[in-house]
């Protein structure tokens, strides 16, 4: 296995930390809420058709507005995540999603040898500017070809 001898995190990557991306509009869609609810077997009456309220996990369907996240290595696995809800999602509402990179760090050792951990955050606000929800995500980027155990 070829070892990486120097950091792949560049000054450009470091400069992206803390920089907020442009707001991206995402819509809470009834079809997403319905499909996810059915798949999970969620019968909570609050989220039933016609209530206008979406279950919290519909946040998974709000796209991936993390467009300013650098791709340093080709593979990626979700390693940590936090969801925070200020209020329920309303079906049909459009939210402004603003993302930013919180941290970039590297790790030597483990399953993938050398990996880069990128933590990013997305905040969702409604059209009145009120906070609705937030996501914080850490993705471990790695090169599958360098994996120690490719079973």
């Amino acid at each position, binding site marked *: 296995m070829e070892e990486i001898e120097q950091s792949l995190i560049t000054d450009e990557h470091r400069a992206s930390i803390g920089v907020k991306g442009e707001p991206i509009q995402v819509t809470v869609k009834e*079809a*997403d809420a319905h*499909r*996810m609810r059915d*798949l*999970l*077997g*969620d019968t*909570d*009456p*609050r989220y039933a058709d016609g209530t206008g309220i979406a*279950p*919290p*996990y519909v946040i*998974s*369907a709000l796209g991936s507005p993390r467009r300013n996240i650098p791709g340093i290595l080709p*593979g990626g*696995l*979700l*390693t*940590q*995540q*936090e*969801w*925070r*809800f200020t209020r329920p999602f309303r079906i049909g509402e459009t939210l402004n999603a603003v993302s930013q990179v919180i941290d970039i760090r590297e790790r030597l050792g483990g*399953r*993938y040898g050398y990996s880069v951990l990128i933590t990013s955050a997305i905040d969702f606000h409604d059209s009145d500017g009120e906070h609705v929800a937030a996501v914080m995500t850490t993705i471990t980027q790695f090169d*599958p070809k360098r*994996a120690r*155990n*490719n*079973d």
Partner: protein
Amino acid sequence: MQRYFEDVKVNDELEPLERIPTADMALDFFGRDNPTNPAFADAEAGKRMGIAGALVPGLLKLAWVTHYVGAWAGSEGTVRNLRVAYRRPDVAGNPLVLAGRVVDLRQEDGRNVVELEVVTLAEGEPSTRATVQVELPSRG
């Protein structure tokens, strides 16, 4: 069943729940018309990532955790915050058992907050470990 703050105690356990993730389920979760990680549906793509088969999406597991705690709380309970560590990848077709217990009870700004630890167990070992905060109503 509605759960009330006064009826909950630290170390109360949630009834374990088995889920069997499949590649189809992963596609349906995100919607078949939406782009997703190829490793969610293709065991060979998963193997190229060093995983033993098709990868179970972390977001699907987090949605299961959210629903699991929400169902325990009842429809007047509100999941406010989930923090999850994905400790190792799960492979489609392998059963996962959700289990949880209450670790803290407190009042914050007049709200009844219950904190739970929830895990997904694969072959008895935690593959996902979550801390979840849920608000419960009072009986009064």
